[in-house]
């Protein structure tokens, strides 16, 4: 039971200081989660902290490889509505 950080992470540092287990370390090309230490915040917080502040969709996944922030979850715009919203914004 541990999360993973994938390529696409920009290394913005937001997650690292929040981790209650100290499991996240700054690495290149992207930050990494120590699987031995990651508790998925179980017992500490209602929501996993790293995934709650990460600004990039899809780069933190659970042990099954499922994205904690799937496409559209952070912009608030599901991929299917992207074109329509784009048209609306371009009309401003």
């Amino acid at each position, binding site marked *: 039971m541990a999360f993973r950080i994938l390529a696409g992470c*920009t*290394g*913005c*540092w*937001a997650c690292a*200081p*929040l981790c209650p287990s100290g499991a996240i370390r700054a690495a290149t090309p992207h930050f990494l989660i120590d699987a031995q230490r990651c508790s998925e915040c179980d017992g500490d*917080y*209602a*929501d996993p*902290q790293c995934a*709650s*502040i990460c*600004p990039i969709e899809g780069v933190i996944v659970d042990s099954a490889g499922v994205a904690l922030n799937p496409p559209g979850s*952070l*912009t*608030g715009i599901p991929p299917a509505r992207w074109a329509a*919203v*784009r048209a*609306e*914004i*371009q*009309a*401003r």
Partner: protein
Amino acid sequence: MQPWVPGSLGCARSSIPAQTTGAETDGVAPLPDAVRARVHDHPCYSEGAHHHYARMHLAVAPACNIQCHYCNRKFDCSNESRPGVVSELLTPEQAAHKAMAVAARIPQLTVIGIAGPGDPLANPERTFDTLRLVRARAPDMKLCVSTNGLALPGLVDDLVRCGVDHVTITINCVDPEIGAMIYPWIFWQNRRVKGRRAAEILIEQQQKGLEALVAHGVLVKVNSVLIPGVNDCHLSQVSRVVKAKGAFLHNLLPLIAEPSHGTFFGLMGQRPPTAEELSAAQDACGADMRLMRHCRQCRADAIGLLGDDRGSGLRLADLAEGEVDDRAAMEARQAARAAIERSRAAARPAAEVLVPLAAVGRRSERADAVLMAVASRDGTCVDQHFGQASELLVYEVSARRAVRVGTLQVEPYCSGADACGGGDAALRATVAVLAGCAVLLCAQIGYEPWRRLEAAGIQPNGEHADEPIDATLRAVYRELAEAGRLKPVRSTPDRLTA
């Protein structure tokens, strides 16, 4: 509250209140002497000071606790020159070392700020450690912090204890409906909060923080990013609210949204404001003249005089290791400041004070004013090729005076000696943001860009290469007046919908 329509094309002029209401009059009152004394040698606040004094931003704060649609937290893009992007993240110790080394090399340095690349107050330990270290070694420096305001109320006491005397809060709205179009989410009390609720919390925290800072005597400037069709009609309300609460300055920043920056707005094709819209929004906000209109929207690691970033030449590795004599450096700075002040006192015309808009006259009394844009590398002369300009200075020029309206960031359409005219999309975007300008002044310009500007109703002018901007603006204004070709600053509203 201003009416706002989703996807609307700018503001109906009639929706902007006249500047003669009580609150507006207070809002544009001249700066009190005490405030003026505190910003006199601050290059960001005083147009007079920015030619003489330097500031430095320390990039120690990477994390951010909110997402703005105009921001992409990407590091290491040396093409860009916008807030939130830095090339070198520093630890507090490295930052203090760099600050002291730079302060010893550039004795005109008066201001050290922390502006990012994330939110300084979302990295409280790094930010406050840095401030304490710098304070201890250079007590003569003015310390500044910029923030989105979310974590501000809980940290006001720490800011005061560290001797921070200027704080900038970016406040883009006081209405959560509008906020939800700018901020998709915030991180709040260990959870991600989205949508309208996120904007509500952020706005509440910003306003609380503003009030607490003012109560502690900290100077507060409010920055607002002007986003056409989102908050353009709303900023006059923001201005009234923040000035009533004691912000000493409200600075409008035109949105930067290049697709290549990878921001949400950039990718979605949100356009930046035109010169005309920036000017109109500033009028509606009663923005203070000669204050901040020279703002160059510096990077979070900017060093040096405004518009002359020396950050890339002063990276940590370039600064010699070893001890800096802090005391000798401070004495050198004091001597440099005294010399600068002597020359400023000698050069300053008696009338050169921070003039509020009200003193210049209402729009109806400036009916003969026109907007002119200038391509200038050094900020004092018409010395740049139009195609190589990454920013254009916009002035409102009338028979009586020329006043800087602001600076528009553009993408140079000419990327090399043989590729001039190749950046078609860039040229189109540049011509679009110049809407409302009567004239574009530059040192040189190609045939095709010339033709496009003319077609857009903007007269290109390359006849004043390397001449001083002020004199050129006056001369060109006279030529326009004599030829009967003056067109007013504000054209008809249908221009905005074209």
